[in-house]
């Protein structure tokens, strides 16, 4: 029997969670198998809370969560056998060495790949006899990533994985992440505020701000729909009102439009009124993210 083709690596349906100081509202999000999702948001937006709910470390007040087909938190033990999770504030057991941790993790996961683990030791420049208490922050993150990668997880969940890493280690990590999705059954969810990494390797992108999902779609759709249009507006000409204009900054002679649904017909509409389209620019993911968040905050009832 073959597994269904469009299985989800995970899905959250209408998930909400209230802490005394923070509220996550009706979050719906899913990742098809074989893809990488980037969870992008400012500090305190709810990225870590979302990931903790998915990992069963906190129980949602409402909604349903599934990971690799298992109900969370009810079947969290089964799910976690095939999920590896690393967050940047996670630490190993301070009294033991990296070699001990490797044996420890290997004893728990039958899929542990010792050859791959040894390759990663070299690539990440780590020494197994070293006590983890003496590792630097970057080395610690690399050690955690090694332990996560070498267990060959079906779903890898990373909370801010690149934040403590030097550029070489970051490059190595992105390479290893892409190696994972060479297998179309394996998936990755990672949160980051480094939009450059997200823009490069992610298939799906979710923007989150103030406990709400601002937007979520595949990366190409994001990049394709958002444009900045600079327009010359001769005196006496009034710019027509266009749908899907997210932001408009208007000078006396020039205007800059930001749209989240760019269509070539916009040129004709703008020029019909006498304005002249001077330039249409694509936007980087970071620019799109900022625009998305600003719009969402403007719409928020205060």
């Amino acid at each position, binding site marked *: 029997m073959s597994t269904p083709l469009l299985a989800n690596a995970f899905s959250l349906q209408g998930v909400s969670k209230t802490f005394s100081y923070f509220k996550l509202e009706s979050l719906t999000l899913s990742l098809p198998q*074989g893809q*990488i999702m980037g969870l992008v948001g400012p500090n305190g937006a709810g990225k870590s809370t979302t990931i903790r709910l998915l990992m069963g470390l906190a129980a949602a007040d409402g909604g349903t969560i599934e990971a690799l087909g298992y109900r969370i938190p009810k079947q969290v033990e089964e799910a976690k056998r095939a999920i590896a999770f690393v967050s940047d504030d996670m630490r190993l057991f301070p009294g033991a060495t990296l070699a001990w941790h490797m044996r420890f993790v290997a004893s728990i996961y039958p899929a542990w790949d010792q050859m791959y683990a040894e390759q990663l030791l070299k690539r990440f420049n780590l020494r197994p006899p070293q006590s983890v208490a003496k590792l630097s922050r970057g080395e610690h993150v690399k050690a955690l990533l090694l332990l996560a990668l070498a267990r060959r997880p079906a779903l890898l969940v990373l909370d801010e994985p690149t934040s403590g890493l030097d550029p070489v280690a970051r490059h190595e990590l992105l390479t290893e992440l*892409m190696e994972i*999705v060479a297998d179309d059954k394996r998936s990755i969810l990672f949160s980051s505020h480094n939009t450059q990494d997200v823009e*490069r*390797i*992610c298939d799906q992108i979710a923007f989150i701000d103030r406990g709400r999902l601002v937007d979520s779609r595949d990366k*190409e759709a994001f*990049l394709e729909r958002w444009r900045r249009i600079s327009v010359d507006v001769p005196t006496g000409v009034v710019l027509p009102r266009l749908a899907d204009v997210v932001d408009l900054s208007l000078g006396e002679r020039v205007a800059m439009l930001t749209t989240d649904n760019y269509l070539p017909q916009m040129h004709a509409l703008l020029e019909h009124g006498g304005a002249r389209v001077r330039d249409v620019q694509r936007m980087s993911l970071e620019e799109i993210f900022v625009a998305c968040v600003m719009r969402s905050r403007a719409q928020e009832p205060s």
Partner: protein
Amino acid sequence: MADRPVHTVHTVNTDMHIAIQVSQTDPRPMYLQIKEQLRHRIAVGELKPGAEIPSIRALAVATRVSVITIKRAYLELELEGVILTRQGRGCFVADNANLGSHLQLQELDQQLAAAVHTAALLDIKGEALVERLRELERRLHKSQS
């Protein structure tokens, strides 16, 4: 040119996807960079008609660029008749005898189109633009002879 020793290294790259590079500082979107590099390889005959090219996932791993981006590049190349994807068998350069020269012409058109666009911004149009091109051609010939 200056008289310093020139070291040339000849490498025959049979593993073509290694040579494809995607830059995040390039203003062109990543899918376009991949498309253009593949087209270029086909245009100059580096990739012959019928040759197998890496699968979407293999190229994604090699270039460290998301699967969805490579997929988009392949999809557009397929729609343009440049490559073929055979379900379960792999991806191939289209079996079109004069695909190479056709693509080279397309590449030329793209570059000219960009030039026309820039010229328009400088208000150089029509005959003036053509005259500028002729002048440029004359200068190039002179410097080569």
